[in-house]
């Protein structure tokens, strides 16, 4: 009986330590993720999956650009085209370090975030059918 109790105690401690390690690893990964992406959402009306898509797209492109060389137009183009093709037209994207804007957007189609030292505004407007006249 005493041997069995000791064995159970040992197994219990082992499992607890495994769980704790897993939690620690997950927390570290999340922290690394946020730190690496260096993203801060400033204003938003957009489902989470689309937000994540925008952040990942921006992060990937910025990482592929030469350091300290921001190509605002290229980032804006990339984001707009990706969202137009994935979520339908018409998306608009503004990227820069110094701008203000006032826009009308579709419901669920607006995010304004900063990544590194650049600001990104991505929003959607409804598209009317072309007038065939």
């Amino acid at each position, binding site marked *: 009986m005493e041997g069995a109790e000791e064995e159970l105690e040992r197994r219990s401690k082992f499992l607890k330590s495994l769980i704790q390690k897993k939690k620690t690893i997950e927390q570290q990964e999340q922290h690394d993720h946020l730190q690496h992406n260096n993203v801060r959402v400033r204003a938003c009306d957009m489902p989470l999956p689309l937000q994540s898509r925008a952040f990942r797209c921006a992060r990937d492109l910025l990482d592929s650009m030469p350091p300290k060389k921001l*190509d*605002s*137009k*290229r*980032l*804006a*183009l990339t*984001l*707009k*085209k990706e969202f*137009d093709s994935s979520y339908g*037209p*018409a*998306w*608009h*994207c*503004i*990227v*820069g*370090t*110094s*701008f*203000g*804007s*006032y*826009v*009308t957007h579709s419901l669920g189609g607006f995010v304004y975030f900063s990544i590194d030292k650049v600001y990104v*505004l991505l929003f959607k*407007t*409804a*598209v*009317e059918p072309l007038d065939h006249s």
Partner: protein
Amino acid sequence: MLEGKAMVKETDMSPKMQIHAMASASQALDLYDVYDCISIAAHIKKEFDSVYGNGWQCVVGSNFGCYFTHSSGTFIYFALETLNFLIFKGTSS
């Protein structure tokens, strides 16, 4: 009367609408400080919404690049004083 010299960089607007855009920007600069880009943009956007129908977008600043889809004949990009102005109609249902 325009203060300073406005310079159109790109547009597909009618000349009349272009003049209206630059006049609206000039008026906004009289009302707001040059650093208050959002109020300036809001002033212009609201003017265009009320005169030409809803769905206008306006971006004002000294450092930005952008890509957008606009209705035909509704886009202008110009510089006035230290700022750049982008106005376009992105269609609105």
